[in-house]
Structure formats: C-alpha cells, structure tokens
C-alpha cells in the first residue's frame, strides 16, 4: 500500500499552501478527522492553480500532492477525465490492475491502486479529489454568472 511514490509525495508535497483562486472549499473526513481547504484558480478553461492546506494521514497528503501535479495546466475537460479515472481506480476494491492506458492518464496516481483494497482508506485518497471537483464546479459556475 505504501508505495515509494506515495511516501515521496507525503514527505515532499507539491503545490502545498493557499494561493489566489476563484473558489475555495473545505472538506473533512469525519471518520478520521482529515481536513483540507482547497482553492482553484481557472485561467479561462485551463486549471491555472490548485492550492491547498491540509491535515491528515500520508495517503490523503500524498494524494493532494499528486492531484496538484496532474491537474494544474490541464484543460478542465481533460482534468475531469483524469478525476473520473482516479475515482474509478479507487472504487475498484483492488480489482483493477492499472494498464498502460490508465498509467498514461494517471501517472504517479496509479501508485494508489493498492489503497483501493482498504475500504477505510479510500476516503483518505479521495478527499482532495472530491474537494477539487467541488471547487472547480464552483469556480466554473461563478465564471458563468459573471
């Protein structure tokens, strides 16, 4: 479960800290108390920045770092596909063995495949991704309203 990739991201998180954004959300995992405050900045249809402040276990921390790596700079449509693919992998209960196509989409995030075997930890891995989805939807609806 604790792949080196996960431990690396945990010890040296990417993109950590809160910076400017159009939307901010705060998500918690009530079963373990993990928390994240996450902001999304959209540059047109491109994810300009995902910044975050979080507290929690290695899985939730590493997952937020991987998310930042993967999604920043991507067009929102592509980012949503990556998010959906990650969600599918995490909900697979260990049944999906990531193939080359999935690895191409998820890059470092395939390291979380092992986490999907542990129901108690899936929520840890998904915390930042659900927060990102929520914040992005808010940022987009805010932009549409202007």
């Amino acid at each position: 479960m604790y792949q080196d990739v996960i431990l690396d991201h945990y010890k040296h998180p990417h993109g950590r800290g809160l910076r400017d954004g159009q939307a901010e959300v705060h998500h918690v995992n009530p079963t373990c108390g993990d928390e994240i405050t996450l902001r999304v900045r959209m540059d047109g249809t491109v994810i300009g920045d995902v910044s975050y402040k979080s507290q929690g276990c290695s899985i939730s921390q590493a997952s937020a770092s991987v998310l930042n790596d993967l999604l920043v700079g991507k067009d929102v449509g592509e980012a949503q596909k990556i998010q959906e693919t990650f969600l599918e992998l995490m909900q697979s209960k260990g049944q999906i063995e990531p193939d080359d196509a999935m690895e191409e989409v998820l890059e470092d995030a395939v390291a979380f495949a092992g986490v999907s075997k542990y129901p108690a930890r899936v929520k840890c891995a998904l915390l930042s991704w659900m927060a990102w989805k929520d914040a992005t939807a808010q940022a987009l609806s805010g932009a549409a309203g202007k």
Partner: protein
Amino acid sequence: MTSASTGLVLPGLLDTETIRKDFPVLDRLVHDDRKLVYLDNAATSQKPRQVLDAVNAYYERHNANVHRGVHVLAEEATALYEGARDKVAAFINAPSRDEVIFTKNASESLNLVANMLGWADEPYRVDRDTEIVITEMEHHSNIVPWQLLSQRTGAKLKWFGLTDDGRLDLSDIEQVITEKTKIVSFVLVSNILGTVNPVEAIVRRAQDVGALVLIDASQAAPHMVLDVQALGADFVAFTGHKMLGPTGIGVLWGRQELLEDLPPFLGGGEMIETVSMHSSTYAPAPHKFEAGTPPIAQAVGLGAAVDYLTAIGMENIAAHEHAITEYAVRRLLEVPTLQIVGPATGEDRGAAISFTLGDIHPHDVGQVLDEQGIAVRVGHHCARPVCLRYGIPATTRASFYLYSTPAEVDALVEGLEQVRNFFG
C-alpha cells in the same frame, strides 16, 4: 508468572497461557503468516469458547420467546434469560435483580435515562430551569443524549474540563454542580485517556445538591470489581461486548424507587400490565423498560461471560491489567517522539493507552502496525472533545485485557519502531 518470549516477571499476572486457550480467535494468523496481537479491547473484547458455546446451546436446544409460552422451550428460554439477569445482578452487587434492565448496549442505557428524565414528573424532571452536568472526557454516547435533552427541554448543559495530565478538573466542582443540577452523568474509566475518575467526590457533591448520578461503566465493568452499592450512584450503564459477551446486549442498573417512579422509554409488548385502546398500565421494573422481544441469546451469552469473569476473579483481572499497563506505559515512554495522551503512569488508570507518535498520523501508525498483525484503534475514539482539548486530530490507542501478555507489549513497541523507520 513469566512471559514465555521475554522471560519477564511481573507481579500479579494471570496464567495467560491457559486463558488464551479459551479464545479461539487469538490463535489466528493475519496477513498470511502474522500472529494476531489484539490490542483493541476497549473497542470490543474477544469471546471465550464458554460464551460461544452458551449462545450456540441456547439456539440449538432452548430457543423460544420469553415470558409468553407455556411450553417447555418457552419456560427454558425464560429461565435462561432471567438467570442471566441474576448473574449480572450478583456481578455488580445489585440489591435487587429487578434493578437490572437489559438494553441493546450502553448507548441505549444512557439514552434511556436521558429520555426518562425529560419526560419525568417532579422532582426528577429536567426542564429549562435546571442543569445537566457531564465531563469533557465522555464518549459521544454520554454527550449527545444530553445535548438532545438540553435542546428539547432548554436545560443548561455544563461540564467538567480536563487537566493537562488527563484527569478531571474538579477545582470548580461547586460552580459546576449546583442546586439547579438535576443529573450528573460521567464516565468511570475513560475510553480514550484511560483515566479512572474519582467517583466519591462527584457523588458526594451531587447528593449534597439533590442531583441524580449516572455512571458510564462501559470501560470499568470488564476490568475491575463493579459494586453499584459502593459507587453510590443512582444509575450505572455498561455494555456486554466489551466484557467477553456478545454484541447487542447492554445493561442499565437503577435504584428501585427511581425505576418505579420514572416513566417508560420505549412502549410495546412485555412492558405492559393491561392495555386498552385508550390507555395502558405498565409492568413493574425491569420489564417496564424492556419493550418487545429482548436480546435473549445475547443475554444468555452475557451470563456466561459473567460466569467466566467471576471464576477468574475481577480482583485478579484488575491486578493483571495493572501490571500490564504499568509495563506498557514504561515501554511506550521509551519510544522516541511518543507522547501518551492521558495519565503517563499506571496509577488510577485503566488498560487503554492513547498516544501520538511525532507527526506521524495515527492512520498510518495503525496501518503499518496492522501489516505486522497488531490490531490497535486509531481516530478520535468517539471522544472528539478530548482530541480538541489536547489540540490533536486523533490518537493511536492500544488497550489490553485479561489475555494480554508482556510479549504483546513488546510486539507493539517493536512495531512502533518499524513505523518510525518507515515514515521517519
């Protein structure tokens, strides 16, 4: 008594080699080849063969509904169920067997009292002019029912805070428990801190102002002599599954005159005397508080658990756990960066020890321990206000019981070293 693998001699230890033979699950291997080290006893205990056999025998030979039929099985089932009540009454030194109410768990027992007091007539009634007192170290099951009662009645909810070393701060006891206090409800042994609370001081103050006292003994009944008369409380709640019994069975003990005066909680079969379409009269306690078909097999299992504990002796179990706890506290404090949350001594503390390990999140601690076959609990242990009080998101908790050994303490300490190497 020596521990096989360490050769360690601790005074007061039980013959765990013999005891462990009664618990089939303790032989289990996990993660292919790891020997199970079960240190999550504050969450639930394992069950001895004697309890499993009693439950099985009940279903295989005696199963029927209780207090109803006139046939052989119904009479046997009733005798077994009521026999379990006798055993529990003796176990807690209740003055009368009719003071022992079977519930489904301690939470239901605590909710039962909270609801009775909301519906009661004077002098017991909790209303907007009165106060409820709890403590900051309660399990959520002894917080939320009182918050609900407070919201419904307008009564003020007050609580005792905690000292830095994990004890109740009773310095302001006369301001907290006042003439307005109707009920003081507190935990005898904390499930997260392990603290054993000073019952006498609290009961004395409550009695001075005429308040009722409810004691949550969920973490006490499995581990020490529980004498409801010596405690001096009005109600005592605990659960069966933490004391070798099945899940689905809890106990509320209450003083007889209170049980007579207070209104019922749940309505239904079994709790009535006569019913018409306009009104009903109620059976005497304990049946007044046991609506519907009760957890019969579970009560029988709890009776067998009480027999098992009594045969070993609660004083002996307490001495064993004290020895294990002192050893565990000493060994854990040797682990660099480890901090005990709660009393860092074996005095006036139970066998549940919570701790933090540097900045390593308890979920990660628990997961890496699990990979080594060591089962602990991580999180806020349904006592989130305690985590808030000490400014921590969660803890790792190791909790011991009558079958725990010094070798298992050693396994935990070695496991924590591996956790530190892994995340260090």
